[in-house]
């Protein structure tokens, strides 16, 4: 066995390259900068492109252009950069442009604390773009997840032609960790479906049984139109309520109705009426709390979500069937707990949150469980 010693951000970059990503554009920001640093080492010698842009708006803009030209693209930033991405995120949603966005979360609000972790962007990633249509958000708990979930993120972005976020956290991104790279289970790489029916290409036409239009790159023999305007299948602006309603519904359903296929999670059900539900770096403390309590003869169940959005509702309902009490633990002042309250109205939902730059400890989690 051979171990490597990587930080989460490096693992993200290696995962991206393993997925066939050959275009990165970014702007330096702690704690995301080392994604860019690593991409800058990896891409140029591979014939790939790594750009440092004038700001975050340009970074995501360049990515969207390159994605429409057929490349797999990624950008990485932290909360302040996500704010600047917002307008282009809604472009990627509405105009169905595949892109992977790494959000290495740091303590907010505003510029907050550059070198302290938090999971404070969890609702922001879901709702921080105009129009309110769904996005996919995956949440790694460790360096291995940073590698594999980035690959999953690319696969989902390609398959569903949408922005996919990896909601990392300074505490994973800049923490180095041993990893056996030779024995990582990697998902098979998926590429976007390419239009192959000859002439008559319509950039947003969806055929029967499809939820996503076939893709041709800008620069193809057939002409390709991309637009930020509300558009019909031909990619021209439309005012037809029927056409608009059909496409909005499709943009909603293509993710909400498929999330069962990519509801990543790690769950252990114990003989207990209580479950800890968490995600991100906090999962590690929760796991330890769970192990200790099991040794003490008071086991609790544990659910670690790795797909946060769309909310894997069916999965959560199914796994909490025999649970009376769910303790949601997150590194913020209470965000995802609202989703859990929404989908489990009949259960007792507890909350443990903390946003002071420190990790939530296993002890705090155990105290919270024992106190109630």
């Amino acid at each position, binding site marked *: *066995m*051979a*171990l*490597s*010693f990587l930080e989460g951000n490096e693992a993200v970059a290696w995962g991206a390259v393993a997925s066939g990503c050959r*275009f990165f554009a970014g702007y330096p920001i702690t704690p995301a900068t080392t994604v860019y640093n690593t991409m800058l*080492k990896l891409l*140029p*010698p*591979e*014939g790939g*492109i790594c*750009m440092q*842009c*004038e*700001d975050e*708006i*340009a970074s995501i*803009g*360049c990515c*969207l*252009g*390159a*994605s*429409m*030209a*057929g490349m797999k*693209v990624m950008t990485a930033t932290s909360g302040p950069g996500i704010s600047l991405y917002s*307008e*282009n995120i809604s*472009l990627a949603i509405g105009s169905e442009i595949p892109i992977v966005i790494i959000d290495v979360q740091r303590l907010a609000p505003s510029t907050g604390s550059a*070198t302290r972790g938090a999971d404070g962007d969890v609702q922001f990633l879901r709702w921080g773009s105009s129009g309110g249509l769904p996005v996919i958000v995956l949440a790694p708990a460790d360096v291995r997840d940073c590698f594999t979930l980035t690959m999953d993120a690319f696969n989902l972005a390609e398959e569903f032609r949408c922005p996919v976020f990896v909601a990392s956290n300074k505490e994973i991104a*800049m*923490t*180095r*960790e*041993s990893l056996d*790279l*030779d024995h990582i289970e990697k998902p098979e790489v998926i590429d976007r479906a390419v239009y192959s029916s000859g002439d008559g290409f319509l950039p947003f036409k969806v055929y029967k049984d499809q939820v996503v239009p076939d893709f041709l*790159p*800008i*620069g193809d*023999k*057939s*002409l*390709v*139109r*991309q*637009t*930020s*305007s509300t558009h019909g299948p031909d*990619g021209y602006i439309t005012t037809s309520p029927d056409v608009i309603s059909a496409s909005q519904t499709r943009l909603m359903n293509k993710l909400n109705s498929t999330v069962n296929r990519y509801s990543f999670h790690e769950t252990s059900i114990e003989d207990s009426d209580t479950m800890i539900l968490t995600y991100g*770096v906090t999962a*590690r403390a929760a*796991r*330890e709390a769970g192990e200790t309590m099991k040794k003490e003869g008071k086991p609790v169940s544990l659910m670690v979500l790795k797909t946060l959005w769309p909310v894997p509702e069916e999965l959560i309902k199914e796994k909490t069937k025999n649970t009376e009490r769910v303790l949601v633990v997150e590194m913020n002042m209470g965000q995802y707990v609202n989703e859990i309250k929404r989908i489990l109205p009949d259960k007792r939902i507890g909350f443990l949150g903390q946003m002071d730059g*420190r*990790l939530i*400890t*296993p002890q705090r989690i155990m105290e919270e469980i024992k106190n109630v």
Partner: protein
Amino acid sequence: MSSLLNKSRPPVFCPGCSHERVTKALDKAFQDMGLSGNQIVMVSDIGCSGLFDTFFHTHAFHGLHGRALTYAAGIKMARPELNVVVTMGDGGQGIGGAHFLAACRRNLNLTLLILNNFNFGMTGGQFSATTPPEAQVGSGFLNQLEKPLDICNTARSAGSPFVTRCSSYEKDLDSKIRNAIEYNGFSIMDMWGVCPGRYTRRNKLTPKVIEQELGNFPQMEGEVKENKRMEYSEHYREIAEGLEPLTEPVKMEKQFEPPEIGRKGVMILGNAGQRIITAGEILCMAGLSAGLNATQKNEYNITVLRGPSISDLVLSSEEIGYTGITRPDVVFALSSEGIERRQGMFKNLDETSLVFKVPDVEIPSCTADVRMMDLKGQRIKSLDWALASLAVLAKNERIINIAMLKAAVEKRFKGKIQESALDLIDRVKI
């Protein structure tokens, strides 16, 4: 070649709008160059100039206000063979100012056509970055307070190698556009025109007035000699071709048995300049050489050359969950700044905890087994204390041993640095 105008979507500008002339001249330029639609990408943003992409049978990317240059840059880097033409108004030029400057500096082979009609036509004739202070516009008196931007001068000083200022009414507009598109580098055209829908309702601006006004500016047409240089994407590819590919991340084989098993937490409390982070990495790699798992969390100030520098390290024969350390097994106290930052931790220590401290720092009182480590007395410099601490740990056969430490140093460092690190490890006395 035939016209690339989209017959089913003819221009929809107000009667007399100068954009119409630009549309025709651009089509003529495409024809004269013998281009077919799939060799061209029209990139546009918002406003009346943002309609351009719909008038042509070409590839098209219509995006957010002021951001057209960013999409264009991504497209061009991905597909350098395409002719990428960006249309923007003076509105997009203003809101996308940073992208404009960056494009001039970058010199990617894009053509930027600025359809400059001195106001925001679509939203009601508000003032833009180019509106003269004496104009009557939809922003009340506010435009009187600001100086209009000289687009061409700005482009020139920002490094654009091709700058043309002209009227949209010039007879040879098509050949000027063609020159811009054919130029191998970033080319911009500041094309002055009229907006009868908004601007000329209250301001006298005719093709003739434009011509006169242009006479008051220094002439700018075509290449800017002092900015001539290699095109960005060609330059990028030339340099990238010569780069060595990065091989896999470094791997550490299991070669040794660790002196201790279970989970161990180590904290190195130092300050900037003591190479704390590097030492932390070496300790973890030493662990890897005995098949231990390891995590490293670092804490330092944004001003990297000042203040505390702390590394929290966990080595474990099991998988590591929680990466924080509440009660470390070993603490190295190397600087007061580092100690101060973690003051509260000392009360968690008990008799099983080991603290190695250098003589000139104070630590809060605690029940740990505190040992002095007189590194200065051994003539070891402060910047080597962190690495020397690892040698102390290894010589005490705690968590790591000397073979593990040396294996890590040999993997992490090369040449002279490796030699002096190995020498330091040998020199340290306990």
